[in-house]
């Protein structure tokens, strides 16, 4: 169990993306929201292009479009001009102003700017700033920091009404950035099947899944509404999926006395047994018998496929929470973990038995000499090809595939889906 940080001068085939992208993703899960990326216009354009390629959906995003002079004389004027343009033109319900490496290096005081603006203006829009320099972290930390900033902002707004009366049977779901829209939908369905109503924030399952809603808007369509966000403080329990969002749950606990339960992963048999047991004891119900079938199917699938995993060497490059989740399921399947790379050093990684390298996909490639299966985002495809290793694209970004955001690998059935994909590659 070591996290190895490689002191490298050159990153070759990076695994990670910028934190700002994680922030933009979080905002897609909020209804009528828009992330305003504080940087030069490329900072937003690259994110938009990459997310559009992956999700195959329109992506809500705007930019302060900084030019050299704006930075030298301070980005404040551009920030306010951009905010007012968006407020007047599109009337969003929510706006997050996300900083970038550029504005952080320039020392732009984004948080102060927004604070001052809100002192003298009262827009009918929930606005909050998030510091997301891209010289640290990756997608997961950007998403995490944005959810934390959102909750901080909500607590600030609600401070006179807290603590609120709790609604029986209402549960908060904080779904980590490694979960696909299909995953989030599946987790919601499972919780609901025990008779709970669920508030998910952010909720990408209703915004990045491909609805047939017409009527173009530059704002996000789908996701948690502002009313639902306020409802977060009235739930009796918070379920967190992914260690990265644990702090967000702790913030809700501190502000409104809502206890939480963390599930680092919902992929694999044991993870789901724990999840269903928890829901059973919380609801006092056995749950839908349908899920018993799904559990049987999963075990049967492992029986059928276990030959293909034994002795097989697997190398994995993913964001921290995702890595933890996939490593666990690979171990249940009897595969041998032969090399792990992650994008930055996060808490969840220090709980793992294996050595983990904080590095890039070129590091993974050097570990893949004898591998049988390579699991990473699509940037790993060429490396896997060069090493002649079977390749499973998961994570972000995924190119050349339809339906990555609908693919489900949580719950018993989702785990079965994933095992089928992996087995077919190994067989």
């Amino acid at each position, binding site marked *: 169990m070591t996290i190895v940080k490689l002191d490298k001068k050159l*990153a070759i085939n990076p695994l990670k993306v910028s934190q*700002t992208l994680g922030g933009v993703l979080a905002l897609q899960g909020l209804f009528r929201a828009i992330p305003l990326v504080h940087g030069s216009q490329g*900072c937003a354009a690259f994110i938009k292009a990459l997310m559009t390629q992956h999700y195959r959906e329109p992506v809500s995003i705007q930019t302060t479009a900084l030019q*050299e002079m704006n930075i030298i004389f301070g980005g404040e004027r551009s920030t306010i001009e951009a905010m007012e343009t*968006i407020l007047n033109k599109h009337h969003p319900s929510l706006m997050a102003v996300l900083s970038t490496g550029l504005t952080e290096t320039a020392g732009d005081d984004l948080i102060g700017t927004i604070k001052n603006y809100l002192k003298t203006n009262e827009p009918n829009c929930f606005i909050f700033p998030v510091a997301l320099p891209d*010289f640290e972290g990756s997608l997961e930390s950007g998403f995490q920091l944005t959810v934390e900033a959102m909750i901080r902002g909500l607590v600030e707004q609600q401070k006179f009404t807290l603590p609120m009366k709790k609604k029986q049977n209402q549960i908060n779901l904080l779904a980590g950035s490694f979960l696909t829209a299909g995953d989030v939908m599946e987790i919601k369905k499972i919780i609901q099947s025990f008779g709970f109503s669920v508030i998910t924030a952010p909720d990408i399952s209703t915004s990045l899944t491909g609805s047939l809603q017409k009527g173009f808007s530059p704002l996000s369509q789908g996701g948690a509404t502002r009313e639902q966000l306020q409802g977060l403080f009235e739930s009796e329990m918070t379920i967190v999926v992914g260690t990265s969002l644990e702090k967000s749950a702790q913030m809700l606990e501190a502000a409104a006395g809502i206890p939480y339960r963390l599930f680092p992963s919902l992929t694999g048999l044991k993870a789901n047994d724990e999840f269903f047991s928890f829901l059973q004891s919380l609801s006092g119900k056995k749950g839908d018998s349908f899920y018993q079938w799904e559990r049987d199917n999963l075990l049967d699938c492992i029986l059928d496929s276990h030959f293909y995993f034994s002795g097989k060497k697997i190398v994995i490059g993913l964001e921290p929470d995702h890595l933890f989740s996939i490593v666990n399921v690979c171990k249940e399947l009897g595969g041998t973990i032969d090399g792990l790379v992650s994008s930055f050093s996060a808490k969840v990684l220090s709980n793992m038995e294996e050595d983990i390298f904080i590095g*890039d996909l070129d590091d993974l490639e050097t570990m893949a000499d004898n591998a049988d299966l390579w699991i990473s985002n699509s940037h790993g495809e060429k490396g896997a090809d060069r090493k002649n290793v079977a390749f499973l694209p998961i994570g972000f970004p995924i190119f050349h595939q339809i339906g990555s955001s609908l693919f489900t690998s949580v719950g018993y059935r989702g785990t079965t889906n994933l095992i089928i994909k992996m087995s077919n590659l190994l067989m």
Partner: protein
Amino acid sequence: MEKYVVEAFAEPACEHNSVNQAHKGCVQPTPGAASGGCSFDGAQITLLPIVDAAHLVHGPIACGGNSWEARGSLSSGSYLYQYGLTTDLKEQDIIFGGEQKLRGAIREIADRFSPPAIFVYSTCVTALIGVDLDSICKSESKVIGIPVIPVNSPGFVGSKNMGNRLAGNALMDHVIGTDTPPIETPFDINLIGEYNIAGEMWDIKELFDQVGIRILANITGDGRFHKIRWAHKAKLNMLVCSRALINMARKMEEKYDIPYFEGSFYGAKETTLSLLTISYMLNNQELMKKVRAFTKAQEEKLAFDLTKFRKKLLGKRAILYTGGVKSWSIISALQELGIEVVGVGTNKSTMDDIERIKERIGESAKLIESGGASKILETFRNEKADIIIAGGRNMYVALKEQIPFLDVNQERHHAYAGYVGLKRLAEQLVYALEHPIWELLQSPSPWKEVGKE
């Protein structure tokens, strides 16, 4: 860096700087209502297609990490350009200036890949902290013994177009004119601004091969570094649908006496015109004769092949909203297929481009100057159009509104250049318009029926 940008701004062949425009330079983007890439993006679009070179991004992860492998330039052999190489600056690196890291990265690339050249791109952060890219590249080049070329085009100096131009300047200052070709022919030309998206350059080369025109250097589609070094020995430059690199063509005329012209390979008419122009400008009777016969035969064959498509496409109304691929040249291609272009995006067009658009579609068609997606949809509805032809960025805008769509930008998967390209364009347009999904979308869902009862 300042001097590069000032020079690029002052480009005399750019009409924003003409006397009656009072040197106001390029338009500034509006905060909160801007779209499109930055100068760093533009520089990479122009230089990344040099497939055997290493392309190193000096900056924090956003610039390299969010952008690599997202472009459609194809290679016929060397794949180093597909590697995502970046110094991935951390906070400590930025505090200490990042110079040692950059030097280390350059040396590691030289050791590991032995490339013919390394292009090093500055980014907003490294420009802001004052990294002296020129001197670092110069001294590293001496150490490793291969050209290390500084590309001073950080995102905040302007748009993609500005980046294209700055990249052109980098080639002029550091690459072109540094070597000579082993043999020269009177039929040597350079293609400037053709990036081999979906393999279009290969179709163009095929045409050239048949009449005996030789591409001396591809600038830069499927480009090789050593060939670009001797580009100054060409007899003619053809600027392919890209005014953004006009500075390069103009400078080569000035410095090396190479004439240039702007042309396109979209549509049979433009393709023929381009081939004829090359033969006239190379001033070779034999070649002219060959080209005339060849283009005539090609056009005749194509006209026959297109008959069945034209029947289906005649009178269809299209909205065209493109970025890099210039609207005016695609308009000609669409018109040849019988399609009426009823709205054209001009947000990235130069004033000359707009004149050319008007020449082709007349005054009645709507010009969409800005406003992005919502303006495109508005024009689509007002003009009762049948299809939107645009870049990938707007694809899901169209599909969400259940409108047929064709991608003609840098992520496109089909090559539309030349005679064979026009046939492909016709084919893809028919596929898009006649797909069964448009009918499926109209069928009522069972829930809707139940609700009615």
